[in-house]
């Protein structure tokens, strides 16, 4: 197959971490000018492999060839010199530095850090369509712009081989399309891409060839033109695919969560982060909130949880007004909460699993009695969660950090469904969780719903959102601007509504008032 010299050849790469073999004997060959996709479950070792190629980690075994020459990268600097650039799974930007500073960082010897550098950035931006103001602080940028900055960073260094590790995870379909257009344009100019994504449709749309990794080893390559998403997924998992579909409605008319006219202001005199939010979740209902990241979903959840103080409006759980209560009191009122970032918000990483079981429940049985902790009860109930939710762990005494992400998430879900909650707020419950764990989490949420649980679901995964929700509301710039019917809506329609491009389908009904207000705010 390989007539000309491949851009990159990885052979026999093995990488061990304490307790895990992230890569074992991986082989990968990327042709010049192609978009080569890398697929695999969570923890399959994709990022690790790419970090090895980028010099951030050293392989224990195996060799790397770039443009036909064997190389050894000790630091990213070496890889950059060899023309390799990487856009990481998580943004790697310094918020308090300007776009220009972020871009030139580490590559100052090319054009300095002043006017010449700025000119070069503008040239690059013009050539690729990645326009962004070099003088602005990164903290002021939205996700799509940040992504552009990340790619600019790589281009600025003169990379010819560009690694994109899950670049689309935080983008809406329209932004994905834009990105793909850019990539195709650059592909024409001779750039080579290594593309990682869990979204297999995207992979098929953009890739020229696909390599699948399972449990740290390459299990094969596929032609994206011919393979189906389902086939790809089955290669990844090695078994049948689960799906989030739920159709039979269990919605009752008992209101569990009522949010009235909720508003949140970050600082005096600035644009409100949440503006007149009204919503209702009933027992047995899953209400999905769609929205581009940074449009107030996080703030909405945190305001309902009492972690932020509402500026005005009310939050009621059942008949009880909880607006003035703290987070703990709201949890006691029966709210379970799966936070969006399990490492930062969900877990005490160095504490044993049973201590993590106590978190958020510290006032309730079985983990405490009054002011006293009930350690025996906590351990017993942790064992139950481990059993019921299939948390793979040798014991409940290991620190949470020792578990894999999926297992950590199962523990969190199990905890939040303990103690008979009436309402579950699930923020990206399956983000970064592999298919197996994902299926289990979906099942648990569906079961709880069937038992009459009300669920407020926030997710960036539109398939998940459409598959699970009974109702979908779209959030834009801190307002609920549209409703969608999950039975009929497509991800593309939802995407349009989320970006404010206007409804293109009858499945999405815009709120007249919301749209008016939105246009008003543009004038401000």
């Amino acid at each position, binding site marked *: 197959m390989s007539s000309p010299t491949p851009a990159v050849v990885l052979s026999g790469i093995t990488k061990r971490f304490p307790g895990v073999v992230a890569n074992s004997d991986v082989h990968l060959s990327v042709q010049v000018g192609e978009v080569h996709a890398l697929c695999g479950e969570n923890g399959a070792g994709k990022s690790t492999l790419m970090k090895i190629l980028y010099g951030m980690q050293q392989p224990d075994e195996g060799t790397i060839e770039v443009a036909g020459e064997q190389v050894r990268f000790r630091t990213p600097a070496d890889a950059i010199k060899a023309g390799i650039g990487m856009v990481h799974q998580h943004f790697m930007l310094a918020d308090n530095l300007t776009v220009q500073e972020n871009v030139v960082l*580490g590559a100052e*010897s090319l054009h300095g850090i002043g006017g010449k550098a700025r000119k070069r950035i503008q040239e690059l931006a013009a050539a690729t369509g990645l326009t962004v103001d070099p003088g602005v602080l990164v903290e002021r940028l939205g996700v799509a712009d940040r992504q552009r900055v990340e790619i600019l960073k790589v281009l600025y260094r003169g990379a010819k081989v560009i690694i994109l590790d899950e670049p689309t995870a935080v983008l809406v379909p329209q932004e994905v399309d834009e990105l793909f257009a850019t990539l195709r344009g650059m592909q024409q100019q001779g750039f080579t891409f290594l593309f990682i994504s869990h979204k297999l449709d995207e992979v098929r749309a953009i890739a020229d060839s696909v390599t699948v990794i399972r449990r740290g080893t390459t299990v094969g390559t596929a032609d994206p033109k011919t393979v189906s998403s389902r086939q790809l997924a089955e290669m990844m998992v090695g078994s049948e695919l689960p799906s989030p579909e739920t159709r039979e409605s269990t919605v009752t008319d008992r209101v569990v969560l009522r949010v009235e006219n909720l508003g949140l202001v970050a600082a005096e005199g600035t644009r409100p982060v949440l503006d007149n939010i009204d919503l209702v979740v009933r027992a047995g209902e899953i209400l999905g909130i769609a929205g581009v990241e940074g449009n107030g979903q996080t703030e909405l959840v945190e305001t309902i949880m009492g972690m932020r103080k509402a500026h005005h409006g009310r939050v009621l759980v059942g008949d009880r007004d909880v607006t003035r209560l703290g987070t703990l009191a709201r949890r006691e009122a029966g709210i379970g909460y799966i936070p969006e970032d399990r490492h930062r918000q969900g877990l005490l990483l160095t504490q044993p699993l049973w201590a993590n079981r106590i978190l958020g429940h510290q006032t309730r049985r079985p983990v405490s009695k009054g002011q006293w902790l009930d350690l025996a009860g906590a351990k017993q109930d942790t064992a139950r969660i481990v059993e019921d939710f299939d948390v793979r762990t040798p014991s409940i005494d290991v620190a949470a950090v020792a578990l894999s992400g999926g297992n950590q998430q199962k523990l969190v879900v199990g905890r939040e469904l303990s103690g008979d909650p009436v309402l579950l707020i699930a923020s990206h419950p399956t983000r970064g969780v592999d298919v197996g764990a994902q299926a289990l989490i979906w099942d648990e949420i569906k079961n709880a719903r069937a038992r009459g649980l009300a669920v407020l679901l926030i997710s960036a995964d539109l398939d998940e959102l459409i598959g699970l929700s009974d109702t979908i509301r779209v959030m834009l710039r801190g307002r609920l601007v549209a409703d969608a019917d999950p039975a009929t809506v497509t991800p593309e329609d939802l995407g349009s509504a989320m970006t404010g491009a206007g409804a293109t389908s009858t499945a999405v009904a815009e709120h007249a008032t919301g749209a008016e207000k939105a246009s008003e705010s543009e004038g401000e």
Partner: protein
Amino acid sequence: MSASLMNPAEAPLAVPPPRRARRIPGWAIGALGVAGAVVLLSTTSYLTGVPQLTSTGTIQTAVRLALPILLAALGGLWAERAGVVNIGLEGMMIMGTWGAAWAGYQWGPWAALVSAAVFGALGGLLHAIATVTFGVNHIVSGVAINLLGAGLTKYLSTLIFFPLSHNPRESPSVPKFDTYSASGLSDWLGTLEAQQRVGLSDVAGILRGLITGVSPLTMLAILLVVGSYLVLWRTRFGLRLRSCGENPVAAESLGVNVYRYKYLAVIASGALAGIGGAALVLNPGQPGYLEGQTNGRGFIGLAAMIFGNWRPGGLLGGAALFGYADGLQLRSGGKTFLALIYGAVLLLVVIVIWQLVRRRWFAAAFGILAAGLLYAIYYSVDEVPSELTTYAPHLVTLIVLAVASQRLRMPAADGVVYRRG
């Protein structure tokens, strides 16, 4: 100390409208602040009839007292911009005083300066090894270094200085720098100051204080402030260093050797703190090293840096404020200090008017209350008790931080232990 300080509710806005960095440049804000301070002081001086507020001598004292604090603060800036909290400044400063005395009595003031920097840098190196290589909590390591610095210098003094000075707590005396004045200008300003013309004489006094009897050390310190700004904000080295304090993972991924920059920054931080120690030893009036000489100035330096919002110009202001308040109370005690309270009342009045204009009723009411209270003190006592004036700089720092803390912005990864990989 970083992450725990952040209040989730105060996290920045989700998607703020893209806006250019700042409309008013930093230097203009600084100049405005200085001008405001001068106007305030000269008004107070006029209204209370206390010329000492802006006299040449007061300013000179303020400069001398501010110098070690300024240098320590600058040391703090370097470390914290690279993401390492340096509460060990005090210990490094102590090492600096010892080093300065040891080299100084033998080879003169310049050697003292170099040696102080080296000794301070050794303290910095230790801090870097602990925090960067071993990932020890920064505060913890800093506390240990303060202990070590004090112990080591005591021990070395007993061994080395005792035979010479017959006092284990003191070094032989160290030769000092000559001081310099812009003589013609200074004299002219002197006559102007003596005329006691409202405003004019105050400005003359302040300017004269800044250009008369200037030690090379002062010039060096000013150069270091300017130099630090240029290096940290205008060179690639500085950009890389700051990136380690903002997002070390990103920096590392771009080929920046984060460990190396952190090491360099913390060592430079130690060296600057050491020079701060030298400033104490080489201060006119100090024979040389004296045990306990730093007397918490390293901590004050840290406060000045935070006060200055992790910026060179800001920390210069912080150090100046501290030196000024301390100088005023040392030189003329409670009576003059009372005038400063009057000045605070004036300032509060201005703030209250501003708050009223902005329709911040609560803040305005609070301001009126505070102003009233202070004025009552001013009215009822004729001398502030010395127990209060001695620690006035502490009180001022506390109050200013209470007012301004929420505007401060520390480097995002400051105090966070960074591990490669």
